[in-house]
């Protein structure tokens, strides 16, 4: 398998300038092609963990290697090259509403084409083809020339996923990708992410708040609490007791998406 897709944390820590601890002493290895779900209550460090992988949030301690290469601490060519191979999906979609769906997806190609081509909208045919394929994979190719802001929430998140896919990434990081969506759309998007992971073998790390989603869609579950790793195991073996430990309290109805699964 493609070892570009391996992520290794060694004593990784983040202390924010205001003194808040984002991550502390994380030792973790994510293998190529894995589908990992990260759970933890709000402020546990889930976002910090993902953002340190593509250098959006630099580590203050330890190291992270992606495909054997340490993540550079400063903005620059090296970091851009690493990011080109790592797609990111956000809770708030982060697409440009005023531009077409196609242009938003082509943003996934910016690191792969010369700057002047992107600047004058002269994308090579091969890159347009990759963008179209990405849209087809998430089932919204018919919306290619629609203004992105005119789509529904679920469709906008699919644009976000297609943009990540257009990067032809080895890794996809998804930071609470379904937190702004209704339950039906939530399951559709989660199934999309699982299917993409299975079909393309892209290493996928997904932050989730809901326990039932984590258990249903994750292969491996990682629990964070106060920036520290407090759980690491398979989705099948995780117990109510483990969740209690991760959340520091008994899980309640607010921690599951479908009430009927709460018990």
């Amino acid at each position, binding site marked *: 398998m493609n070892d570009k897709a391996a992520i290794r944390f060694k004593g990784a820590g983040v202390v924010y300038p205001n003194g808040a601890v984002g991550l502390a002493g994380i030792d973790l290895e994510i293998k190529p092609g894995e589908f990992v779900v990260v759970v933890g209550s709000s402020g546990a460090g889930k976002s910090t963990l993902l953002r340190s992988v*593509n250098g*959006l949030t630099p580590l203050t301690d330890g190291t992270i290697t992606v495909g054997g290469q340490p993540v550079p601490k400063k903005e620059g060519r090296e970091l*851009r*090259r*690493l*990011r*080109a*191979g*790592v*797609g*990111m999906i*956000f809770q*708030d979609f*982060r*697409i*440009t509403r*005023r*531009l077409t769906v196609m*242009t*938003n997806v082509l*943003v*996934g190609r*910016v*690191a792969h084409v010369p*700057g002047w081509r*992107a*600047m004058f909208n002269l994308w090579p045919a091969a890159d347009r083809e990759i963008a179209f394929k990405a849209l087809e994979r998430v089932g919204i190719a018919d919306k290619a020339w629609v203004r992105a802001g005119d789509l529904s929430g679920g469709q906008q998140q699919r644009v976000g996923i297609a*943009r*990540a896919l257009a*990067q032809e990434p080895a890794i996809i990081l998804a930071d609470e990708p379904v937190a702004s969506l209704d339950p039906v759309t939530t399951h559709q998007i989660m199934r999309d992410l699982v299917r993409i992971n299975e079909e393309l073998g892209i290493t996928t790390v997904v932050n989730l708040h809901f326990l039932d989603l984590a258990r249903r869609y994750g292969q491996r579950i990682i629990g964070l609490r106060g920036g520290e790793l407090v759980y690491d195991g398979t989705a099948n073996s995780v117990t109510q007791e483990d969740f209690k430990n991760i959340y520091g309290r008994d899980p309640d109805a607010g921690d599951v998406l479908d009430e009927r699964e709460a018990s």
Partner: protein
Amino acid sequence: MSEAIDAATTRPLRPARNWVLIIGALGMVSLMTWWSARGIGFSIIELACNLPGGRRLLVESWPPDWSFFPRLLGPLLETLQIAVIGTVIGGILAIPIAVLAARNLTPGFLVWFVDRNFMNILRTLPDLFWAMLFAAAVGFGPVAGALALTVFTIAVISKLWSESLEAIDMAVPEAVRAAGGSWLAMLQFGAIPQALPHYVSYTLYAFELNVRASMILGLVGAGGIGMVLETQRSTFEYPRVTLIVLSVLVLVLIIEQISESIRRRLI
């Protein structure tokens, strides 16, 4: 019971007015007005005495000399052309200047600092100053006027637009960075689209200002209708002056209407 008492005690009293401040401020303004009026010899009585003179001027200026109109068309067109050139070149140059001056987008403190101060200098100096400067540099005529308006346009747009840019949501620009995008890609796909309607709006606004300004610029020899105005005024051809003022008024009103209706649709 105790709840009612609680509510009464927590409801804050209206603070007393600061009369000292109010009277002090009014006194300051009165004093400064009196001092300034004395300084420039501004007197209502004297104004009233001079009213007949003003009336004579109005009577002499009416009716407008319509026969002069054909000779105005060329200069009017030139005025419009000066404004167009100034707006287009200034509008383009204002883009990088505004971006570098926006705290959230600038690549570094030093660039930001230099650009900010450059912008402030452009804005502090009046358009008439630039017109005289360029007239001295490239000779009297419309080119000097267009150059002066270019600087004026940069000053207007860059200041207003850099503030719009500072107010954008940085979430999408960050997503472009996360996809491996460079600073330019971040600007093009993440930042600028959010503030594009503002840019168009400010550019149209600058065009309105430029049409008006290009009349004044003619007074110092920078081409356009203002130069005709100046020659007619200095030879006391008041009916012609009236016609010139009326035509400029109509031109400016038409352009304002068009630009206003476009801008309303944008934001």
